[in-house]
């Protein structure tokens, strides 16, 4: 056992020290992989943008299994990376153990709150962004039934679903929202075949707009929606280009901005909780040449008005994670 530890430690240290100079920032990608066309890829894009603009270099580690989380964080911290950004709620527990051991290093975690003096917790108001795309879904739907397909069944994904359902019902109180989750294990983020079948199942229940918040499983959702000529909604990154004219919009979660901000601030980055919502363009909806024909002027006006109302505090979107319940949808 000790021998194995030594070997693994040595291998990891080698791998990490070989890549960069001291005091570079670092980013740790979660299990979905850095090219998931969605969440992790957004983080990657933010890091790349920083690299391009400043000419600096950064280190990166891609998680391959649950067991590597702590090891990766400790190795990065010990080899002097600062600040260290990690993407994903799953790092929460690990970070609260690791952070106190490296008081000189600043950590930033996305999608979770860790209350340590040297941690910046970046959380997004996904419910607000989902509310907006929910409104668009309800306006684009002809059948009055829209679908939601989540990845792994965790509170964060329910937060997406709940905001979406509220947006749908705000436009059309009689609408039906069907919500399915692809699974309860991390494999649910990478099963496009199941995503396809869930989409088929929702279509047969009458859905004509489907919102996927499911990592690589969403690739299957968008594909089947395009094959069956219904509209889909992408998530996290702008996925409109995947099927031009078939993707209604994408709920943008500007993980790239979050990573960029941390990298740009360097080790002087502010710690504490950093909430990214509509007001600071942390979330939003995507509009580009690929979906310009799908989004009507009326739709855009309604969504922009709602966005302004949410920022002003006139409309309140319920956050599933605040009390683990949703007024618009039952799970």
């Amino acid at each position, binding site marked *: 056992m000790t021998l194995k530890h030594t070997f693994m430690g040595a291998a990891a240290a080698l791998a990490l020290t070989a890549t960069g100079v001291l005091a570079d920032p670092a980013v740790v990608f979660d299990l979905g*992989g*850095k*090219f*998931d066309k969605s969440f992790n890829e957004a983080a990657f894009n933010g890091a790349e943008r920083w690299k391009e603009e400043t000419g600096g270099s950064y280190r990166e580690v891609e998680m391959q299994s649950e067991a590597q989380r702590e090891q990766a964080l400790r190795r990065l911290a010990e080899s002097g990376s600062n600040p260290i950004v990690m993407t994903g709620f799953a790092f929460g527990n690990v970070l609260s153990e690791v952070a106190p051991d490296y008081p000189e290093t600043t950590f930033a975690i996305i999608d979770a709150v860790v209350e340590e003096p040297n941690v910046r917790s970046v959380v997004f108001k996904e419910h607000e962004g989902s509310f907006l795309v929910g409104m668009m879904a309800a306006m684009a739907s002809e059948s009055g039934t829209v679908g939601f397909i989540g990845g792994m069944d965790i509170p964060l994904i329910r937060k997406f679903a709940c905001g979406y359902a509220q947006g749908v019902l705000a436009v059309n109180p009689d609408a039906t929202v069907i919500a399915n989750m692809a699974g309860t294990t991390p*494999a649910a983020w*990478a099963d496009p*075949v199941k995503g396809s079948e869930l989409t088929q199942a929702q279509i047969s229940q009458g859905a004509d707009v489907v919102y996927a918040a499911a990592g*690589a499983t969403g*690739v299957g959702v968008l594909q089947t929606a395009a094959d069956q000529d219904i509209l889909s909604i992408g998530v996290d990154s702008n996925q409109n280009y995947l099927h031009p004219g078939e993707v209604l919009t994408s709920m943008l979660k500007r993980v790239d901005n979050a990573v960029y901000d941390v990298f740009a601030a360097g080790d002087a980055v502010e710690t504490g909780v950093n909430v990214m919502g509509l007001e600071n363009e942390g979330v939003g909806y995507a509009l580009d040449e690929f979906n310009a024909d799908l989004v009507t002027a009326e739709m855009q006006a309604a969504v922009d008005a709602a966005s302004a109302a949410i920022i002003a505090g006139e409309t309140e979107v319920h956050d599933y994670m605040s009390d683990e319940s949703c007024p618009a949808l039952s799970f």
Partner: protein
Amino acid sequence: MDFLTLLQVLDSTVRLATPLLLACLAGLFSERAGIFDIGLEGKMLAAAFLSAAIAFVTESAWIGLLAGIGASMVLAGIHGLASITFRGNQLISGVAINFLAAGMTVLVAQSWFSQGGRTPSLMSGDRFEPVTLPFAEALSGVPVLGPIYDELLSGHTVLVYLAFAMVPLTWWILFRTRFGLRLRAVGENPAAVDTAGVSVVGLRFAAVAICGVLCGIAGAYMATALQAGFVKDMTAGRGYIALAALIFAKWRPWYALGATLLFGFLQAIALRPDVIEAVLSFRVQVQLLDALPYILTVVILAGFVGKAVPPRAGGEPYVKER
């Protein structure tokens, strides 16, 4: 639950059962010849990747299919080499193949297409398209049988029909041909086959090769028919479910059809919680349905529902002289 909903669930069952059925029959050939194969998952994954990649490059789903079969056959060859020629442990070799496929597919895809271990999306012409059976539209008005023909039987890709045709073919090969008799004998008592002057090694390699072909079709079906490209780890454990189905089917072709359809149905019905709730009038956890194939297999293995006896020489390399 109305009739149309039932048909839609069954339609989904057919799609979900097809890769399981192909992988299950693949395992059946291999294990009947005495070569345990837990590398079904890896072979499917490799085939899924190469079929999608080649279909994208050549713009032909059929060439992609051949490439997928090729990739699967290469891995089957490695498994055969390790476990037949060098008499290695078949389980370890199978695990190694799974890891090899999981890593290599992403690595090669990344260096080839630079899209993060996936292949570019296939255009509609480069995939296997659903086939509409003759008169499906015209007959859809006929009560009961019309919708069954139109909704359930028609509108699948050619690979689905191929998979279902493989069941009687497998039965015929195994139980009605000389090759099949020898193949089964080599899994039960290879020494007897050897005494009769038939090559044990040759037969086992033939079985492993057939296994490779079927896994290749299963992988290609997932990447180029169900989906439009390869995504990292896209087989998502289906190779293991197929193994469970193989035990559930007691290593028989027709039972394999039943077992994979049952498992496919459980997966399909798990996608429709509303239907379950309507039929049973209470809510069943989706997680329970997802776990049912494994639970059923454990029940079978524990001997509650008949006994599943594997081929007697399974898992053991054949040594001519001791």
